[in-house]
């Protein structure tokens, strides 16, 4: 249900970085989304068509990179994915554990076109 404001936020970030780089078109938007982030890819994709229409990002492809959730046992350092009914360490049984991956939620990069004559692949001039 909350993917609309999230999609708007993705668009705002992408457009800001694209404009700062003088881009005329956004081709791809690379999103990194941890498994524990409560975001549904299909829903973001659906809203994208609505919010990006009429912008230089309207034809952009959303590229989702999902990061699986991972828990690290603080006793035996075993790393494992969370199980549905018990989050404790399956190796030593400890409950002293820490979530170490799966909460990521950011725009990693965008691919853009510019009308400029200079051609520089991998140029990193628009870091905010």
């Amino acid at each position: 249900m909350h993917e609309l404001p999230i999609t708007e936020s993705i668009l705002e970030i992408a457009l800001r970085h694209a404009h700062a780089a003088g881009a005329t078109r956004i081709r791809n938007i690379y999103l990194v989304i941890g498994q524990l982030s409560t975001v549904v890819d299909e829903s973001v994709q659906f809203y994208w068509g609505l919010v990006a229409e009429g912008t230089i990002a309207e034809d952009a492809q959303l590229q989702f990179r999902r990061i699986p959730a991972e828990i690290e046992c603080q006793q035996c350092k075993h790393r494992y994915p969370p199980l549905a009914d018990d989050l404790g360490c399956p190796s030593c049984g400890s409950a002293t554990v820490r979530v170490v991956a799966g909460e990521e939620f950011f725009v990693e990069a965008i691919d853009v076109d510019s009308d400029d004559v200079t051609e520089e692949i991998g140029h990193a001039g628009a870091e905010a």
Partner: protein
Amino acid sequence: MSERIPVVEKIMSANDRLAQENRARLDANEVFALNLMASPGAGKTSLIEHTIRGLSTQLRLGVIDGDVATSIDADRATAAGARAVQINTGGECHLDAVMLQGALDEMDLQQIDLLIVENVGNLICPASFKLGVHKSVLIASVPEGDDKPYKYPGMYRGVDALVINKIDLLPYVPFDMDYFKRGVEILNPGLVTFPLSCRTEEGLDEWLKWVTEMTKYHRQQASSSDAIPQKEDSAGEAKSS
């Protein structure tokens, strides 16, 4: 012609910036703010009523109620003796920093010490949207079942305190407190927890004491220093970016 621009920007950054503005505004007025989150029916409004009644002789309270529709909750808070503002989200399943900003405009912050924000009843979406409050509190309740930490890890991970309401029902429903607390401890080690019953008022004093102490502590901090250290106030945020 074509290039890849590294961005690495948190998707919630716009909301987070606004949440910081809300925080600065609360601090400037020396208001301590709580964000109460829970599933529908866990007892958010009942706990707010008890908090108003229990603390209104010591603290001036304001309540901001988020709901999809109706002003029933704000009316209950007003009846209990607080200043209340209702936010109808019109279908949105959570409050965000923009909505809170609008509600703060309607609240006379000079006239209150403690602001309680009642989020929309939902264990998923509110965890993703920071508001700018000082502490987030999750209200679990016994009839919901003991598996909720495992099913909603994002919510349990991000809060600063946990209320377990309706403990008077423990003899009547299958709720394994050890299993529940094990999940909580894994997701949020050392989380301060208040088992209580709004109906029998068992355990309520500890909760009221915590809220009072937090409010007074914050006021001391606010009056002794202009710069309050920012603490993340909500759950599920990317920490790696």
